[in-house]
């Protein structure tokens, strides 16, 4: 293996930290020599995405790689840079934006992140990074690796599905006698953060809560601790660190253009909860405008069961969990010119995909045979030729047919859906507000 060998560095004689000037995206900034670049950027209201970086940890962890920037022309993680005079940093180049986004997408694909079912949703750094970077779909296939939820610790619950192995807890959480409570275990794709039950039991409740707060995702939970604030009122729900100002400016008052003939829409809910359809209904008064310019063909909204004509756009809610879903989806592909996956379930499986880590047989046995609500004497798994067949796992719609567009959210906000549809049908310019862009 090629090991990166030492490049000679001139030794700096020890002296008081002097002021230096650096450039971030062309903006000149004064800073103290040797200060951390992420910190310097923050202090100057320049947002460099980061996850593992935590200002008290020195040397920085350098594990998540979300803060990749161009430093003096070379890609490098910003958290590992100490500012030097004349340092030139480029944060928002298309290439670096894409690299950072890819790394966040990798985390979503590698773990099992079901935001709508997560206690930390809205308080989660990973989710926040997803919003900031506009991740609407992971380019990487979800790996659906079976991971444990560890209920054994005294105060905590460790949700390995959500861990991004940032190392923060490994470095920072210690008992009073300095022993580590967490450590990385195994290696390669089997790497997990292990917890020492004996040491964990020595932590006070306050220390445990601090660990939960330290965790950038919902991997460390404290028993009996519910969220202080409801959804919609959490730190990352409404405000974007970087885009708030920009978003305010780019609100475009949209007016429906003069329609030339009504456009035809079809909608369906596959393995979903109809929540996305509810959200569509929440377009409220917009629906009246809508009906002037579109007509619905096959859709639960008007209860038309069969396609009667070719449609302009098809909106799909939910992924595919049975053979009927697959058939319906394929029919939609044939009958609709544009196919849009609406909501998390249709994009990558969503909540129904929680079963993807567990073999189908176990799922069915749990649901029909071993469940406490099973009627005695009726211990069978339903199977009949008239019943749709259940698939081995929940498939994202784009694993089965080509999907043209994705609208994320659980559910996506009505405004988001409406704006996207208008844009697709009439090419109307639109922008999505930060607060409308949601995974939960």
């Amino acid at each position, binding site marked *: 293996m090629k090991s990166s060998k030492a490049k000679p560095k001139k030794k700096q004689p020890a002296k008081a930290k002097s002021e230096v000037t650096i450039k971030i995206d062309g903006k000149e900034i004064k800073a103290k020599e040797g200060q951390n670049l992420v910190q310097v950027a923050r202090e100057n209201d320049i947002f460099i995405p980061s996850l593992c970086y935590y200002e008290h940890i020195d040397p920085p962890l350098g594990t998540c790689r979300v803060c990749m920037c161009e430093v003096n022309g070379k890609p490098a993680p910003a958290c590992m840079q100490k500012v030097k005079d004349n340092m030139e940093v480029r944060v928002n180049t298309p290439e670096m934006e894409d690299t950072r986004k890819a790394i966040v997408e990798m985390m979503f694909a590698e773990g099992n992140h079901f935001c709508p079912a997560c206690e930390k949703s809205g308080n989660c750094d990973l989710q926040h990074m997803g919003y900031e970077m506009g991740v609407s779909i992971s380019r990487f296939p979800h790996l659906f690796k079976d991971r444990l939820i560890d209920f054994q610790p005294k105060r905590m619950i460790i949700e390995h599905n959500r861990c991004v192995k940032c*190392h923060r807890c490994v470095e920072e959480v210690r008992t009073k006698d300095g022993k580590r409570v967490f*450590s990385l275990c195994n*290696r390669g794709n089997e790497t997990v953060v292990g917890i020492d039950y004996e040491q964990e039991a020595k932590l006070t409740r306050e220390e445990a809560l601090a660990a939960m707060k330290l965790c950038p995702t919902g991997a460390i939970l404290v028993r009996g601790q519910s969220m202080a604030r409801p959804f919609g009122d959490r730190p990352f729900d409404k405000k974007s660190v970087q885009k708030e100002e920009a978003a305010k400016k780019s609100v475009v008052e949209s007016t429906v253009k003069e329609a030339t003939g009504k456009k035809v829409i079809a909608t369906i809910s596959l393995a979903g909860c109809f929540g996305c359809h509810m959200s569509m209904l929440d377009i409220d008064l917009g629906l009246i405008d809508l009906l002037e310019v579109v007509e619905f063909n096959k859709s639960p909204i008007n209860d038309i069961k069969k396609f009667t004509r070719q449609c302009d756009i098809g909106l799909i809610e939910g992924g595919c969990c049975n053979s009927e879903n697959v058939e319906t989806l394929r029919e939609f592909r044939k009958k609709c010119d544009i196919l849009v996956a609406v909501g998390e379930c249709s994009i990558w499986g969503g909540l129904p995909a929680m079963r993807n880590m567990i073999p189908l047989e176990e799922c069915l046995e749990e649901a029909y045979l071993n469940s406490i609500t099973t009627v005695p004497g009726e211990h069978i798994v339903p199977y009949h030729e008239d019943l749709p067949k259940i698939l081995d796992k929940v498939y994202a719609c784009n694993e089965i047919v080509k999907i043209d567009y994705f609208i994320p959210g659980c559910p996506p906000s009505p405004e988001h859906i409406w704006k996207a549809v208008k844009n697709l049908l009439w090419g109307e310019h639109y922008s999505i507000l930060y607060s409308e862009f949601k995974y939960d």
Partner: protein
Amino acid sequence: MEAETLSKQRAHPELLNCLWEYQNQHGYIRDEDIEQCSRRFGVSRIELEGVISFYHFFHRRPTGQFTIYLNNSIVSEFKGFQRVREAFERETGSRFGEIDPSGVFSLFETSCIGLSDHEPAALINFHPFTNLNTLKVRQIIASLKQGVPVEELCDEVEDNIRYIPPGKRAVFFREYFPGNAITKLAGMNPEEVIEEINRSKLSGRGGAFFPTGLKWGLCRQQTARPKYIVCNADEGEPGTFKDRVLMNSMPGLALEGMAIAGYAVGASEGVFYLRAEYRWMKDKLEKEIQRLYRMGLLGKNAAGIEGFDFDIRLQLGAGSYVVGEETAMLNSMEGKRGEARVKQYYPIERGFLGKPTVVNNVETLCAAARIIELGADHFLSTGTAASPGTKLISVSGDCHLPGVYEIEYGMKVEELLKLCQADEPYYIQVSGPSGECISMADKERAISKDDLSCGGALMVFSKQRNILQILLNFANFFKEESCGICTPCRAGNFILQRKLEKVKLGLAQNSDFEDIRQWGRIMQTASRCGLGKTASNTLIKALDTFPEFFEVQSGNGLTRKFDLTKATEEYEKFKS
């Protein structure tokens, strides 16, 4: 003083040896051993679990009286790995990765064990068994069952030195007289030693080609004491075995190189980090160390130089590829998980225990010893002007003469292929999986620093071999060997491996190959150490080099052909 090192985690240089003792004693590391260790070192149990689970030769579940590690590298795969694997299972009645109910045999797969010129090969209780086939496996297992000691059964590993430069030009493979190099130090001061190495233009042979003299010189300037010399004998890159041959044929040469480096930089302690796969050479190396001590070449006033004390101890690794990266090796020596450090300091500034440390590859140290012994001029008279000297290349795969070739820099690929009598070479892997692949279109290229740089391995594959099988073998290797600390390498290698599985199933579209390129580039840009930065090199290069192969693999739109029957197969079981 307790050594505080970079990651704020305390160093325990004795920990690895301590864990080895438990492992050897019981065949695994028991809960009570961990408890004991935890008290002795004052660390939590999970920290120990973290270290143990990092190295694949440490076990937390009982292993049998005989542990068999069968190499699953690509060369082995092509030479009959599967048949040998089945033979082991049949003869022992045990299964790979599982515990034998009778407690006699435990079977494990392992990545390259440095015997690519003798594949398929395995280690039984860390003794080498080479050129295996079903018959040989049957005999070995029968003899073991009859109580024949492993050390009597195991094979004498042949060095297979196939080529040395004509005339007296050889640098490495010439007669070795212990002490010939080290005694030269008496007439030189440290600056002169560094100057001589500088003059020879020797650069690191681990693959990064950092100028050795410069490294030593920078370390010499460091004021912190003590300083350390580490010999990197963790030759983990699949297909590489040149260091094995150097250590086996002239164990003293690298040790002398360490002493010379120690003299040059002002270090008094050397650590020889030997990978566990080479444990069968441990006794030999330790005897050699003792011999050098007896000859007065090591220890107090080493080589008779007043005031130059130099001690060498041997540190055994425990099974991890990434530990070959120098900062990961330093972590491993400190009893930590072998994760690469963040590049805040270079080892020459803060290395082992936070002190200035020179880490050099076995071949580099051997070359340094020869340069001091023979003079830089001899070295400069071989090779090319820009890349003087000779290079050891481990050749394996589809050729009649696998083994080590001491070539002069500048030799063309074609000539080397002719020397090793390659069979219809088609796909050539240079420097192992983390290196690059070339086709015969590159046969005119010269092996040297400025053209085709080579870390020391050349795997030759004929047209009959499936390129996808090669790439998947590499992908599996990286997926398992990534240390897991940074996202792009941990998740990226996993994702690329899945992608190749898809290609193998015939489900790939052209866009999938484009994905591989782009995702691979992201890993190259964003990974923390050499492993992640280089893991996707071969894959991307293969797409460019063998387009005719991949064109056939693209299944144009097949992904959309979702197989409903297969997806409902599991459910059909409930039809009653």
